[in-house]
């Protein structure tokens, strides 16, 4: 609740979003672009010990460019995935430049290995901004920005009414991240 106090959230402003979370989640998560079956498969196909092939699966789902990481960078990221504990994001700073500079990719790896970290997504960030939670764009690899992003989603989960929570086995972070992405896109219209 510390973030709540710091951000001084206007709960009234959140209500129109909370009223539509299930519908917004469906619009984003079950869209063709999001490949919900591929997403579900990743939840089950990524497990310890992590391998490069598993990271490739995430890259394909997220439609990222192929990783051009040296072997030691990949190993470093694997160790990072084992070591990090939610909601820490500062450990990202310990990574070498090559890995650290691609936070959207790291956030996807974190999501599918930990399930508690939210995937970084520009529409989701805009959705948060529409609710009065100003998260800056990710121009540089800034773990603090990602930290604020995941804390904000955690905060929304915390204060949302139970009617927002679908009977779904996707992680709750995905539920809110996907709903926020739809919400953010609507703001662009």
């Amino acid at each position, binding site marked *: 609740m510390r973030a709540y106090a710091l951000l001084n959230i206007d709960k009234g402003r959140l209500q129109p979003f909370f009223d539509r979370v299930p519908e917004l989640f469906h619009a984003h998560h079950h869209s063709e672009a999001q490949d919900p079956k591929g997403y579900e498969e990743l939840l*089950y196909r990524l497990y310890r010990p992590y391998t490069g092939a598993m990271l490739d699966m995430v890259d394909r789902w997220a439609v990222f460019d192929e990783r051009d990481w040296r072997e030691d960078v990949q190993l470093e990221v694997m160790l990072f995935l084992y070591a990090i504990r*939610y909601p820490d994001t500062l450990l990202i700073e310990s990574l070498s430049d090559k890995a650290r500079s691609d936070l959207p990719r790291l956030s996807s790896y974190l999501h599918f290995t930990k*399930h508690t970290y939210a995937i970084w997504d520009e529409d989701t960030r805009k959705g948060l901004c529409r609710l009065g939670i100003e998260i800056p764009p990710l121009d540089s690899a800034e773990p603090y920005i990602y930290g604020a992003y995941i804390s904000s989603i955690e905060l929304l989960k915390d204060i949302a009414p*139970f009617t927002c*929570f*679908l009977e779904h*086995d996707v992680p709750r972070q995905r539920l809110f991240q996907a709903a926020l992405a739809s919400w953010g896109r609507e703001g662009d219209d």
Partner: protein
Amino acid sequence: MGPTDVVEDYEPNFEAWIDQFNDWQKRIGFDPAWLGDYRFEIKFDWDIAGDTIEFGDFEGMPKWNRRMQVPQQSIRDAIISMVSVQGDTEFASVEQQWHLLDSAPTEYDRKSAMRIMCEEQRHGWQMAYVLCNYFGEHGIREAQKLIERNSGGNPQREEGEAQRLLGSFNEPIDHWLDFFMFTHFIDRDGKFQLKMLSTSSFKPLAASMGPMLKEESFHLGTGANGIRRIVKQGVIPCALLQRYINKWTSTGLDLFGVDESTSAQWAYVYGIKGRYDEREVDTPAVREHLNEESRMHYFEELKLEMERINKSRHEGEPELYIPSDKFHRGIGKFAGVHHTTHGEPFEGSDEEWQEYLRGMLPSDEDEATLKELFKQEWIQYREWKE
């Protein structure tokens, strides 16, 4: 007595209860190290709880925030009883399920089950907090009982330990098919109970329900999706699955209690437990049939869920269905009356009825078949483990 006195009097008792809770975890076989970073928290959603009693004979009056505001001892007793039963089921499910962690079909399933067990413990913790902090010595005694009983379904159970309060929470959950059935059918009953208490006239109870309902939704999703993944994989035949569906449907229906329940009626009169859709409907409650009404909502929801699950069926497999609410009931007006899974009266002798049941409910043979099937890739995305 001012509010400060209440805190000073009762806070240490909940802390003492926490020590007993830590012992309970070890006694029932749940390794506290499994919790990892998870911390038990007391969560209230005071906003959604509302300020005014919403139904019953006290409708329109302010909700009760403390024990001494509750106007009658009988109402206090009824609240304590409801909180105790709810808390009892939360701890029971952990006792029934902890031993399954080692045989999880995937890492995600293991994590999901672990999360469910953590959250069920948190729900029990919340109920114990309400008992200890709002109901004095009586509440503290009931909170202690929550962690003195041990489910008959716990493989690590000492002889002589008191069983859990409700029958289905003393049944063994032997494997992951039962786990998914339990989370789909029995946790769904739990969702109904929580929603009915979310409009309670006792505000700390109503305010406890919102956060619990949030967590419960994931449990239900895990159950429904687990069954869907099994059906999709097509290794366990639908005819065999149907027998487990028959068993768990009747178990779930029974959990809503007797027909024409007077205790449900009194709970409604007191405003402590409403209808499932209390805030959504404006028709007066039929107070004589409250359990029946909730049961029918549950039954209809089960049928809708089964339609979704059926979409994953392999070609040639029989359609899965929710059996009639008259079939194999242990409680209510259909208890002991012989009906088929399609709701028709069974015509035949008692021996023929027993034979019919053997074909409609899981048998020892089914359990043996399952054991063999579990060696295969019986569920979608299973990691192959020798």
